[in-house]
């Protein structure tokens, strides 16, 4: 054989009986396959979610009674600080990156991410950062200045814990910057020929917007944290008022990242929901371009709203008006998405399986968080409820009712692709029911608590709030219980679940056009687009489109921008080799 032929043979993926199955040990080592990294991200972050959840339940247990009787106030403050830090930096943000890792190369027909090793490095920053953070509890000096870590409080509480917190968040920030670079380059450079940006699935658009936002905002947080570390360790006074520093400058730097972080946490799941709803409603997504561009609009606007967290700090009056208006305007692109999802469902043939139920739950609860978000943007009202349980309710409706339900919807939807097996629908529905009940029971009463005058981050409160706090606490216990059916279901189904086949949902995006779980380099040959990502309901398109089928029977529908010529057989590597 000539060298060229050898090269061709070497490029053919090894055909095993069940492609994609690797040794289970592979998941515990340094691996550059984007799918392994994606699952590493998801499993690792889920473990942190459980740890953060236990902390949340400890916090709620303390708040069951008005007195401080369960943990000491210092431990209480550490618990909610770590709870928030873990949930944000170690669960929702990296879980989004986990899905992006698994899905983006598959969705755009690439063999892997643009920088596979960088990808692995980005993941491997997370476990040490998480362990570092949790270790601070063990050394007995956990951070307790809130996840916002405002100076001067963060400078006068425990120095070791605060230092550990800064280090950990810096590591996690670095990880997400590396991830974002990788996603952007992959999306821009590695799409299969013929996939223009308007043929990209909406999840890819969402990750594009998210990554751009991450790249712009995260370095500012890093800068703020490094200055804070100097204040803490070296005795400088950037933010320390005793030396003339300005604590409000920290707030600007912190929120310049941490408000966009909310969009970094929700945009990937807007994308995931935009994938899930059309598949299970059997209808094309309504207003593809509107949804795609609204992600970009949210990403851009997200950068100019940060000071709405500081309406009660010392900022000029006109600045409050500016940030009120920018914050309000974000409701418009968000509204476009929500109405488009509703219109997608309208008139469809909705399969109410667990993934779709979670997607519906996502839309239904996120709306509540979105509406209270608009209220919070109104300066005079925000001045009343800032730093109260109304804000706690709002952010949990967005981050639990939004992001976490989105993560679950995505897990149920892509579980067959990731593992090759179906999840048990019954236990999935039990999980959904418990989650929805627990979620609303925990967070709905908090709106009233905040409006009536319960401030946040307190271990003891006015006894008149006892009843509502009890409801919240029992709701939190239900939420804790709700994860058990999921964990057991996921593990059991992964090992023994019904075989899924390549495309159990009859979806049209590219990730379903390969084996489940996908082989090491994803596709036998470069896929050719035959339909748009959401061409449901078009003639002949509803049977699912196996792209490896040498004779696809497809007609070009009126709405599909780019389709392969149906008469031309797909080239395979084998046929190419035979020709030689």
């Amino acid at each position, binding site marked *: 054989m000539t060298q060229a032929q050898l090269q061709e043979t070497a490029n053919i993926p090894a055909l095993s009986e069940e492609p994609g199955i690797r040794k289970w040990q592979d998941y515990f080592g340094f691996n550059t396959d984007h799918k392994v990294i994606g699952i590493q991200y998801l499993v690792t972050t889920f473990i942190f979610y459980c740890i953060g959840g236990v902390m949340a339940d400890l916090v709620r247990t303390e708040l069951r009674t008005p007195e401080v009787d369960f943990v000491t106030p210092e431990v209480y403050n550490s618990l909610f600080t770590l709870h928030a830090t873990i949930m944000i930096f170690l669960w929702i943000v990296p879980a989004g990156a986990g899905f992006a890792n698994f899905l983006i190369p598959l969705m755009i027909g690439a063999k892997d991410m643009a920088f596979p090793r960088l990808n692995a490095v980005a993941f491997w920053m997370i476990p040490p950062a998480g362990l570092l953070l949790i270790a601070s509890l063990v050394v007995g000096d956990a951070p307790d200045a809130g996840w916002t870590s405002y100076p001067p409080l963060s400078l006068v509480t425990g120095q070791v814990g605060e230092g550990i917190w800064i280090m950990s968040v810096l590591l996690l920030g670095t990880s997400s910057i590396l991830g974002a670079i990788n996603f952007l380059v992959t999306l821009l450079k590695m799409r299969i020929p013929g996939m223009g940006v308007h043929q990209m699935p909406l999840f890819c658009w969402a990750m594009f917007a998210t990554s751009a936002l991450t790249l712009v905002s995260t370095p500012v947080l890093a800068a703020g944290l490094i200055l804070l570390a100097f204040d803490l360790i070296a005795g400088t006074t950037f933010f320390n008022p005793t030396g003339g520093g300005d604590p409000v400058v920290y707030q600007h730097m912190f929120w310049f990242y941490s408000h966009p972080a909310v969009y970094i946490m929700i945009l990937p799941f807007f994308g995931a929901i935009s994938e899930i709803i059309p598949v299970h409603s059997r209808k094309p997504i309504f207003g593809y371009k509107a949804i795609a561009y609204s992600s970009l609009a949210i990403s851009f606007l997200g950068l100019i709203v940060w000071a709405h967290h500081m309406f009660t700090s010392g900022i000029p009056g006109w600045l409050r008006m500016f940030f009120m208006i920018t914050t309000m305007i974000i409701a418009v692109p968000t509204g476009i998405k929500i109405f488009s999802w509703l219109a997608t469902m309208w008139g469809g043939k909705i399969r109410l399986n667990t993934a779709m139920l979670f997607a519906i739950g996502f839309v239904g609860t996120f709306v509540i968080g979105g509406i209270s978000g608009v209220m919070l943007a109104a300066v*005079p009202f925000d001045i009343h409820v800032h730093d109260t349980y109304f804000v706690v309710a709002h952010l949990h409706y967005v981050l639990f009712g939004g992001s976490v339900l989105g993560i679950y919807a995505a897990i149920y939807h892509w579980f067959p692709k990731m593992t090759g097996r179906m999840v048990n629908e019954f236990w999935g529905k039990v999980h959904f029911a418990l989650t929805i009940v627990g979620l609303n029971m925990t967070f709905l009463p908090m709106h009233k608590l905040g409006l009536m005058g319960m401030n946040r981050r307190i271990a003891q409160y006015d006894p008149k709030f006892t009843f509502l706090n009890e409801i919240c606490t029992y709701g939190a216990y239900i939420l804790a219980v709700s994860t058990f059916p999921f964990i057991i279901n996921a593990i059991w189904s992964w090992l023994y679940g019904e075989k899924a086949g390549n495309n159990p949902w009859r979806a049209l995006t590219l990730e379903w056009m390969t084996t489940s779980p996908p082989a090491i380099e994803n596709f036998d040959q470069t896929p050719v687009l035959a339909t748009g990502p959401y061409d449901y309901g078009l003639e002949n398109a509803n049977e699912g489109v196996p792209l490896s089928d040498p004779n696809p029977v497809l007609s070009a529908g009126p709405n599909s921008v780019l389709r392969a010529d149906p008469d031309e057989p797909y080239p395979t590597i084998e046929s190419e080799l035979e020709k030689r």
Partner: protein
Amino acid sequence: MKIPTSIWTLLIGIVLTLASFWYGQNHGLLPAAATDEAVLVDGLFNAMMIVSTGIFLLVEGILIYSAFRYRQRAGDNKDGPPVEGNIPLEILWTAIPAIIVIGISVYSFDVYNEIGGFDPHAIHEAPMMNQESMAMPGSAMAATLSDTPPSTEPNLNQEKSDEAMQDPATAAVRNADQIPQLRNAPGVGSVAPTIGGTPDKAGKPAELQVNVTGLQYAWIFTYPETGITTGEMHVPIGREVQISMTANDVIHAFWVPEFRLKQDAIPGRQSEIRFTPQKAGDYTLICAELCGPYHGAMRAPVVVEPQEAFDKWMQEQLVASKETLNQAIAVNPADLSPNEFLAPYTKDMGIKPEILHQVHH
């Protein structure tokens, strides 16, 4: 007879609107409104509740209706209709939220202006760069060569701080020597209004001045007109009160839920808030910004009472403070251990003494 869809839509629309209006007025979610400002804020909140209830019912209604009405029937494996979009509809649902948020913004702006947050005159009083010197040839280069020259403009934070310190009682509780005042930091009256001088009252001093100092974990009030220091705030009905506050250690936030007003007290800065009490009652001042483990215990009584009762209280305080003046000033809270310092406050706040023993610093 089959009722046409348009009539159904109209009926549902009417019911939805009525339900929203009813709930927006009768939600019962807010505590009593005890100041003129609170009434305005409540009006804004009610308006937002009407809109929010409407949107909530609409979205949840469509969601649940779709999930039931359009669920897949057994054996039906066909796809739904390939509807990809509808430009007029999309323009409509972009325009309506846009109009709603603009409406809420305008209303918020109006309320904010009414409660005195946005005083357009104040901006002109803000210190500008020294334009004459900047216009001189070579000044730009000079600026890079030397350190920033000492500004000849007034240091408004310092002025406000000095003003508050005129009262010896305030000076005793604020450790101004430890935390320098920031120069021209936004947050004070004429540089950038916090919630303060309503346009028609702009420039006029409030009728009653109260200096508030936040420190871990207590509020201390001093009345510069009479020089008294107390742990509880009394204000008379119907007279505009100006609170000028700062913090001695970490950031605190001044919040009385019934007043609907909140302002951070930041070390090194003066900030202010103005309001006119209108409803007698006993309220609680709550620290709303995380300030340490005992943040939840940082509360102080606030009494809104008629003028006569206020004068009577003031007299009592004057007598009491004359007796204990020397002693009161001699005690510097910074020298006390948290235990000693908190002891007088804990009884009111319902904190068990055991908790206090756990305080270590």
